């Protein structure tokens, strides 16, 4: 009986975790998976969004605050894309380096403005909920439907709208896209901007459940990276599926092995995928 309870727990928390993971992985899946851009600024968007929300929330309330934050990463993303990424696009390594510099800069700037102590954002959904005997806070639980909604919206955008399809087109063959009339540079900018907005949204939605620290962007980034590779590059859908699978595997690990091993498990999965099946579960080959 105890074992069954544990398994159920693992599944429940796994799905909840999957919701969190898929939310944070959406932006990266778009930027890295679909458009194949190596952008460490993702780390910065997460942190900036979190801290901005911390500041804005008491003034404008949670919903309006979220909107403001998500909109305010747009100029940041545009700036980075226009002045740092575009001129260096010939060398992927340089893009990686320069965006890495941006993430460091943001981390230091945040600790300058807000200090480096951990800040907490108040929860806006009180109460707790019990699923099959497993208790979780309403705030945490609410991440799941939000995640599903945003994921569906993103998938719809990529697969069914013209803009979304042009993003895929540009990543597959830039010249051909240009030839058929796609505005390549604005599409690239769009990719980064939407990716940044998704990262910001993810950060804001999970903000009350996580403390804000200047280096807070790295951990979600790594999770997102593992998930995107696990699912396979090139497909938002596969990232979403992979995040739930990963969430469940991780929680099984936590329940049966111990929570301090969770990062190790993630690492092992990442290595295993990269070395054994770089295509991930369903997607493009990772080691291009």
């Amino acid at each position, binding site marked *: 009986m105890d074992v069954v309870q544990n398994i159920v727990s693992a599944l429940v928390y796994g799905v909840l975790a999957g919701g969190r993971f898929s939310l944070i992985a959406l932006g990266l899946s778009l930027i890295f998976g679909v458009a194949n851009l190596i952008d460490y600024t993702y780390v910065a968007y997460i942190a900036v969004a979190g801290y901005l929300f911390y500041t804005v929330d008491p003034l404008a309330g949670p919903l309006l605050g979220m909107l403001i934050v998500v909109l305010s990463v747009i100029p940041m993303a545009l700036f980075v894309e226009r002045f740092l990424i575009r001129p260096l696009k010939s060398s*992927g390594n340089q893009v990686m380096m320069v965006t890495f510099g941006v993430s460091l*800069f943001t981390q*230091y700037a945040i600790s300058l403005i807000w200090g*480096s102590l951990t800040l907490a954002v108040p929860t806006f959904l009180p109460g707790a909920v019990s699923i099959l005997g497993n208790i979780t806070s309403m705030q945490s639980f609410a991440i799941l439907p939000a995640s599903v909604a945003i994921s569906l919206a993103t998938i719809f955008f990529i697969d069914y709208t013209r803009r979304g399809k042009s993003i895929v087109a540009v990543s597959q063959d830039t010249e051909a896209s240009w030839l058929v009339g796609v505005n390549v540079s604005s599409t690239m900018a769009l990719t980064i901007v939407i990716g940044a907005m998704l990262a910001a949204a993810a950060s804001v939605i999970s903000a009350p459940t996580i403390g804000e620290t200047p280096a807070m962007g790295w951990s979600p980034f790594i999770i997102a990276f593992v998930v995107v590779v696990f699912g396979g590059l090139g497909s938002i859908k596969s990232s979403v599926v992979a995040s739930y699978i990963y969430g469940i595997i991780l929680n099984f690990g936590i329940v049966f092995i111990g929570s*301090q091993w969770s990062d190790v498990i993630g*690492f092992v999965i*990442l290595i295993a995928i*990269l070395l054994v099946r770089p295509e991930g579960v369903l997607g493009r080959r990772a080691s*291009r």
Partner: protein
Amino acid sequence: MLLVIVAMIFVVSFFSDDYIFTVLFFANLFAIGAASWDILAGYAGQLSFGNVVFYGIGGYSIGLLSAYFSGKQSSLLGGGSSAYSFLANPIISICVGIGISMGLAVLIGFAAIRLRGPYLAIVTFMLGIILQELIVIYGKYTGGEFGVSIPDAFANARFSFYVSLIAMAVSVLALILITGSRYGLYFKAIKDDEVQAQATGINPTKYKLMAFAVSAAFTSLAGSIYVLSYGIVNYDVFSYTTSLQWIEMSVIGGPGTIVGSVIGSYFIQILVELLRISQTYSLIIFAVVFIIVIRFFPQGLLGFIKRVLRWK
């Protein structure tokens, strides 16, 4: 060039006080770390964001070996048996550290064969974090967050500085010799175009492993010296910020040049000290310089200096 720098530093050292010794001590260690990273990334093109693991291994070798085998009291772990006390000898410990690091480097190298750019970067990055956590998980044996203290640390800042200077000079000299030799050429070939290199008869696997091993060896040395000087090692020694600093120093100083990395680390270290007003300010400036350098000066400071010299 290197002789000039070393000579200058040696001269300066006669007029200095403990504070300056400490600053230069770190500059030397960072120089070793940055140069080691550069030979791996700037020459062989293997972007490792986790070189700090070798540093940590070097440090923990000293820490654990002396804790277990020196026969003297040491923080949580007790003196252990003095039967194998030769193991606690710093020279032996350093060699053990280097040996283990090189072993790990080869393992990582095997993984690196199949991994390009960002994947290698992230995997190596995570490795550092994992090792940090493992230290905590097995805290019973390793001293966890609190660390291990070494009974026979270096006497004072001056001595530490001299040791670091010698180590830096030796390491950098070795690295320069390697990069100047045909191995350096092989590394560059692999970075520029691996398939082409293979076609020319260069075995990329063998030389990638070599690059990793070399990089690991010197980084490990730096880690050991750090611990020998401070007398304490804890899981902070595996902190990813150290890896990042090496990268910044190397890139700013001049990626793909050993001397550049040395210049970079000195430059940064001195800059950081000058801006001691607020540590965070100095870090931000550091980051901004990094961004500007990558964007506008891909050859780094060394490239800039060379261009200036050429103008004359």
